[in-house]
């Protein structure tokens, strides 16, 4: 990756922890991930995570936003790659994510003797249920709750800025109009509320 593109990605990743990233910037991350994948014969090689951590992140994103009747899953949308790429360019975020995966694996091993990605699905769900709600947090689960909040947000960020996610919410963008027509329903609603109609 050229120096300029690397700098752009670093600024993007920095803005994630500061808050606020443009639609263009998110697309840039998706493009970089796709380009990296293409370069390596269709297999994305993670930069932040090791192989096992990356499989864990894949499983997490798939559980957070699964496929349904409307659209595919976060994995289909490239969320694991998106998260890995951003995390690799921001030290604070990278530590938070890798540390979170480690925390999750320790918690999983305590319950099942297996790391999260190798545990049975029912145990994965049971563990996530302990960290998926902030009002259920205990001093013991607090780090996991914090990590999962980040994973949920990042998965949503990746999914809904991807073509799969944009289509899922039905974003249409600007469409040319030659005539401006106020919908009859809006006029009816206003008339009813005004007491005049």
């Amino acid at each position, binding site marked *: 990756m050229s120096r300029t593109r690397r700098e752009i990605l670093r600024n993007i990743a920095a*803005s*994630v922890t500061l*808050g*606020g*990233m*443009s*639609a263009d*910037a*998110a697309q840039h991350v998706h493009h970089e991930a796709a380009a990296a994948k293409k370069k390596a014969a269709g297999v994305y090689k993670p930069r932040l995570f090791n192989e096992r951590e990356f499989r864990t992140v894949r499983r997490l994103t798939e*559980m*957070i*936003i*699964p496929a*349904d009747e*409307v659209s595919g899953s976060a994995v289909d949308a490239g969320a694991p790659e998106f998260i890995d790429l951003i995390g690799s360019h921001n030290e604070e975020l990278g530590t938070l994510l890798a540390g979170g995966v480690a925390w999750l694996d320790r918690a999983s091993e305590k319950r099942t003797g297996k790391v999260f990605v190798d545990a049975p699905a029912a145990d994965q769900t049971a563990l*996530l249920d302990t960290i*998926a*709600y*902030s009002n259920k947090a205990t001093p013991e689960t607090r780090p996991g709750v914090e990590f*999962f*909040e980040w994973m*949920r*947000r990042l998965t*949503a*960020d990746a999914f*809904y*800025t991807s073509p799969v*996610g*944009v289509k*899922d*919410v*039905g*974003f249409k*963008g600007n469409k040319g109009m030659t005539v401006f027509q106020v919908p009859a329903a809006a006029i009816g609603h206003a008339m009813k*509320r005004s007491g005049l109609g």
Partner: protein
Amino acid sequence: MPMVGSMHGACRAHEGYGKSLKQFIRARYGTTVGLSGRGEMVPNKDTYCDIDPVVVDRWGIPVLRFHFKWSDHEIRQVKHMHETFKAVIEGMGGTVLGLRNPERESGGISVGGTIIHELGVVRMGNDPKTSALNGYCQAHDVKNLFVADAAPFVSNPDKNPTLTICALAWRTSEYIAEEMRKGNV
């Protein structure tokens, strides 16, 4: 178009994960409106910059050190904005969802310095003890030195200052021409 951060409010509201989260996000998308307030900060004596005694930039030049504090003027202005927005939203039949980050975590007012259009620090004024420039943006101490950018402002109006910067610069230019004609500079 969905951006990074677009679904964070829904994530926070629903929490959890899985199909119900996805359905919740889908149902909420496009149904929200955000209102952002802008106001004028009244200059106060706790908000200023000085030359940093320690830190230098990459060329070895000491940098500015910033001191910042919101006053009651701004806190109360923002509170009034919240109440106004609430009235507008509820008057239209909507539901107030609350503040977005980062204001939610910083007491409802933006983090100082977030909004751009930096102005000031080479103040104009009549008293050389409390200002650097006169009303024509001419330095009190050096007659042929003028500052014609955003620095002469003594307060920051809450809207875009570019045209005022241009107007002041124009006025300064005419003054310079006149003073040169008279042989004063």
